[in-house]
């Protein structure tokens, strides 16, 4: 898919460290469930996500399986799901390595395309009732990318929420009925000026980063230079960064292996719980995400011990969009401010005038 047009390399993006870090952490531990990238236009949001494809590791899949089932844990579903889409199966399906995909959900997509529906061609040709899987099936174990996620139609958001909550997708449409696994990393970009996300969807993004154009002159010049070089000769530009990309991919894959060994101390666990209680988050997802992100962070540094710095960095990514806020109040851009506020204002006098400066 990515062959025809060279993509600007991930490693060549200037600055935007927290954005890159959030994406990398999600590759290391896909169960972090995604990143929401908030920021103005032209801040390399989409470039960063699209360029992920080059550094994503490979996964094992059954050959020709539209549901990307995991051969190690979901093999028993293969027969049923294959029958539902009308694929005949060999007794011993071949297992192949394939790079994780970035599946893009266009804002104008129909529900049919997202969820899946009746296979039209088959119904007409053979009169058989078969399922045509949707984007959610294609995104299983991969990345589902929604540009301008805040403009997504409401019913599509509902479908996304449904499957994010279930870790799967239920198709009950147009005479067909099928449930298949769909666990994906949800990556969304948005410009907050055009409206906020619904709280429930907001919470489904594991991490949240706020990006803005860099103000440093040297960096801005670097952005211009690289962009010009890329546009002049994309192939050569990509080739010149290939070694760097490869190094990054290696480092990510090492971190992935290390992740299982990362330990979190007793104190750190309490620190997480205390932090979440202090700033006031809904539910337990905040705790869980900080925990996972901190572990991924340690693994990324090549360590097996989570340090307070890891926790701090993980909280910066996991909490801004979870801090309980009054409806219609701005998201907390600055977590420290919120924490201080939470400490200061045990009194009910924390009116909206004290909220952090609007992020616009």
């Amino acid at each position: 898919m990515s062959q025809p047009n060279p993509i600007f390399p991930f490693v060549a993006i200037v600055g935007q460290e927290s954005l890159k870090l959030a994406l990398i952490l999600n590759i290391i531990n896909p169960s972090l469930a995604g990143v929401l990238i908030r920021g103005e236009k032209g801040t390399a949001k989409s470039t960063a996500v699209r360029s992920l494809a080059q550094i994503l590791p490979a996964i094992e899949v059954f050959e020709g399986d539209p549901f990307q089932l995991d051969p190690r844990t979901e093999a028993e579903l293969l027969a049923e799901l294959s029958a539902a889409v009308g694929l005949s199966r060999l007794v011993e399906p071949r297992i192949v390595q394939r790079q994780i995909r970035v599946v893009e959900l266009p804002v104008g997509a129909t529900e049919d395309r997202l969820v899946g529906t009746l296979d039209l061609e088959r119904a007409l040709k053979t009169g058989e009732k078969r399922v045509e899987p949707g984007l959610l099936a294609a995104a299983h174990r991969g990345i589902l990318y929604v540009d301008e996620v805040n403009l997504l139609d409401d019913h599509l958001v509902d479908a996304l929420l449904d499957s994010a909550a279930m870790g799967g997708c239920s198709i009950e449409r147009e005479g067909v009925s099928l449930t298949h696994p769909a666990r994906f990393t949800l990556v969304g970009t948005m410009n907050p000026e055009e409206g906020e996300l619904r709280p429930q969807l907001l919470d489904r993004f594991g991490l949240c980063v706020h990006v803005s154009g860099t103000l440093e002159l040297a960096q801005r010049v670097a952005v211009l230079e690289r962009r010009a070089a890329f546009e002049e000769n994309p192939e050569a530009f990509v080739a010149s960064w290939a070694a760097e990309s490869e190094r990054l991919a290696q480092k990510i894959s090492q971190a992935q292996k290390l992740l299982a060994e990362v330990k979190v101390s007793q104190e750190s666990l309490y620190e997480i719980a205390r932090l979440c209680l202090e700033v006031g988050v809904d539910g337990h997802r905040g705790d869980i995400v900080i925990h996972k992100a901190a572990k991924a962070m340690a693994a990324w540094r090549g360590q097996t011990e989570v340090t307070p710095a890891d926790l701090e960095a993980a909280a910066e990514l996991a909490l801004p969009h979870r801090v309980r806020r009054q409806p219609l109040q701005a998201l907390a851009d600055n977590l420290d401010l919120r924490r201080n506020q939470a400490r200061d204002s045990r009194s009910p006098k924390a009116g909206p005038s004290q909220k952090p400066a609007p992020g616009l």
Partner: protein
Amino acid sequence: MSGPLTGRGRPIYPLVALVGQTTMVQALLLAAINPLCGGVLLRGEKGAAKSTAARGLREILPPLPPTSAESANPSLPRGRPFLTLPLNATEDRVVGGLDFEVATRQGIRVNNPGLLSQAHQGILYIDEVNLLDDHLVDLVLDAAARGSCALEREGLSLTLPSQFILIGTMNPEEGELRPQFLDRFGLAVQVASEKDPELRVETLRRREEFEADPWVFAAKWAPETELLKARVLKAQAELSRVVIPQRIREFIAQLAVERHVAGHRADLLLERAAVALCAFQGRKILAETEVLEVAPLVLAHRQRESAPPPPPPPDPEPNEAEANQEEPEQEEPRPEEPNQEESERAEPTETESAPPEPAPAAASPLDRPEPEDSGEEDSTEPPSPRPNALVERIFEIGQTFKVRRVETAKDRLRRRGSGRRSRGRVSQKQGRYVKSGPNNGLGDLALDATIRAAAPYQLGRERAPGLALALWPSDIRCRIREKKMGNHLFLTVDASGSMGARGRMAAAKGAVMSLLLDAYQKRDQVALISFRRDGAAVNLPLTASADLAGRLLAEMPIGGRTPLAHGLELTFREVRNALLKNPLARPIVIVVTDGRGNVSLTAGPPGSTQSRPLQQAWALASVMAREKRAKYLVVDTEEESLVAFKLAERLAAALEAEYYRINDLKAETLLSLIRAQT
């Protein structure tokens, strides 16, 4: 049909491994013990294990009692069906429809059963149930009420049994359930995350363990799951043996009466749930304790009084009325013998039942810090009833509340848009595929329905080579899609000095904020226009960001004279622009003012309309009223008193607008939220 997410493949998080959340688990178990408890609604904040618990119940469900035919062969206890109704389901999958595969091949009509009949004797689970489309809600309600599912379509005429336990989860931030639907849930639990750090850390640990290896984790908890399953099964067997003393029956009835519960369903459910709890705890005789323990689950969501907002409203009158109603309940002595102890114990439970009640209002936490502010405004303002016209001030946002429904009527026009306020049919190929209908020439083919229409005739038709189906023009069915329309909401706010008096602006801001919150839930587009001093300004052009409008509202300064006519004129210009862009839109204009316009658009000769700002504004208003596509509302901020000018009322008359005082805007009762059915 059993989903791979639950039955096989990756195990789900075991119910017994949940940390804390005892009320939620208890409610689910009661429904498992006695399906007649009538379903469970888990409502609460996101990330509080609602969905995890609901799906975990599956492992605990006792098998179905064997039917007479099966009892001959008891080797196969049937598991109870556990079906998920996804939000995007289409009608034919919910109620059932013709199986076209069979019809094409064999030329016979066979029903492909829908979820409602498949869920018979089992569980129908709906995640984010408050987001379920109205037409699907209707179908579920209908089946739940009748205990069966009638199918009259595509040449099929069937009635299938459909008795199921409805389990739903919802986050009230995203909107409330319709009252009839709410009533269908026997038990409702208000879920919140655990606040104890110990429990939170334990949650983290278990979650980590589960994700490291779900299989090992599930195996580790399997003995406990089995234990609980056995206990549920035993309780189920004991159900019929629980003795219900007469005085307990009276106690239940009294409880329901005291809580102002609509209908008799609550009494019945309360008894069933209490009996189930009694059996689960291994007791033989029902006592008050069990009744009181389950009472919040059954009664909290049924109370007829609307949730009074937790802080006292600034207006003392309704406050007193409420207090009068609440008080006697608490003090009422109970006639029963063990009443000394019982009623003592009753107190805490009764107050315990209160928290879930104000919850709908708590969904808009703006309530919390505000009352103090508006109270202060009240006390600081009176010395300057007519504030200096040149002083500018920023008032904080007053108390917010749940607003009554404002919507435009559903009509037959096809239009574009997205949102949740008014329902309308859409012309584009987007929106939810509601159902199919005969060919309407729009080219939005409902393939499934078309094939179903054609299928029974296939044996007799000549088919083109390579095609299994011969479709005739008469078979064509088109999709009917529906989409809630967000309206265009124009908020025109009077920011003149007269609004500063007596905390009026705080109250007005509170009202506008409530409208914004409502707009947000309904995905409206909002524009904010304010007028003060010598002119009006568009603070925010039409946008989907209610957040932005909220922020601007908070920062809006007030002061100066009242250029009402300017405000109206600018609003009308904006409305007309919006209508030019989208002629089918139905904008709603809300003017928040006390109506005391005192600045003219243009100066004119003395005695003419131009020189009289009020007349000018009214004249303008009657011009605006001629735009029938717009709907106008006037929210009067003038205090009620003997010397009230009632100018806003005059303005409303000129605008042919609906007229409200701030207090009128509040949604009085849950029942008033019932939407006018179309």
